[in-house]
């Protein structure tokens, strides 16, 4: 959901595909790890993990940037992203 929202907010053309047994083979062709999400680029590269995906795409699609201009804010934004990914996912998993 995080990566999908990123693609939409940046207007990066994409197709959203639910992973299930019918596309397992295609998934395995591009994925190095059994992990979601997987982005397959138009030139056939697989990228996994929402943080590396966003890093890679930010370098390709500069505007609108998802990083604030001010360096302290850039750091705070990275810290809060990490907090979301690694700690807020605990309540998600706990409640589910």
């Amino acid at each position, binding site marked *: 959901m995080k990566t*999908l929202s990123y693609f*939409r907010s*940046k*207007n*990066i*053309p*994409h*197709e*959203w*595909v*639910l992973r*299930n047994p*019918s596309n397992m083979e295609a998934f395995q062709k591009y994925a190095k790890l059994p992990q979601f999400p997987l982005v397959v680029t138009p030139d056939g590269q697989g990228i996994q993990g929402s943080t590396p995906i966003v890093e890679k795409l930010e370098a*390709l*699609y*500069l*505007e*609108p940037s998802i990083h604030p201009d001010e360096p302290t804010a850039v750091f705070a934004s990275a810290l809060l992203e990490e907090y979301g990914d690694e700690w807020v996912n605990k309540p998600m998993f706990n409640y589910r």
Partner: protein
Amino acid sequence: MIISTDANDRYRLLGTLGSPYSMKLRAIMRYRRLPHDWVLRTTRNQAETEYMKPNLLPMLRYPGEDRYRVDTTPLAYDLEARHPRQRSIIPDDPGLAFLCHLLEDMADEWLTKAMFHYRWFHAADIDYAAHWIADDAFPDTRGAERDAMATHFADRQIGRMPIVGCTPENAPVIEDSFHRILALLESRVSVYDFLFGSRPSLADFGLFGQLKTLATDPSPMAIMRASAMKTESWARQLDDASGIEGDWLAGGDDLPPATLGLLALAGDYYLPFLLANAAAMDRGEKTFSLTYAKGPYSQGTFGYQVKCLIELRRRFGELNGEAAARTRSILQKTGCLEALS
């Protein structure tokens, strides 16, 4: 690579998340992979569309144009004409295309009564929906001011309930329709299973728009989670079907029981409603009533729904040859034929 966000080179879709028709059109554009910007209509951008009459959501602005358009059904057909053969949502077979139109019409004009009824009937739903909608539409208010906006909006919507038929007297008929639609869809829908094949049609998107909002308001959400969870999952899946690739049923294929059941529901509920509305309009009456197996139903007479009936008959009348005969037989079996001939 810089993707422009200001240039007028993409579709611009203004809507709200609580609006079933906004959800419907957004899902169509996503499925069809039509580049667009989805913009919540708020107090900050309201001026952009103040000239629009009627001022209804969603509104769509085409690339390179400066005016907005409304009404999702003609918009969906116009997008077909503008982008032919690009992930069309109209079945290839003309008979199926007609049945698809009929079911979309029922979703837009009849299932929407369930959406409106559940949203503004019980106190818990009113409270939830009023604040949800105020949160989206009035971002520059906080606290008591936002609460006041929510109350004002709820009062206005609740005041409209009798005109559109969402009254306590009509509730058994409206709720029965909702439960029957859920039971039918529950027997069919999945990531890859739709009403006219393994790809979604205009009818699927019409139902989706209503169900997406029904699956968010508390009471109908609870009903769906208790009795139709696959349908709730489907409403999430269809919100973004940009990765779905499928096929249409052929004209002579058996229709799924769910599709036939929905047509029978149109024969039981929707078409008698359209006929009674049109008859009242002919007599110049401001309201009309009819009696269903589940009880009485009455509401204000609507010109728009007379147009819906005329359009259904026009489309049915345009069928010819084998498709006409086959469709006539399906309509006969599902109790729809008399109203459409």
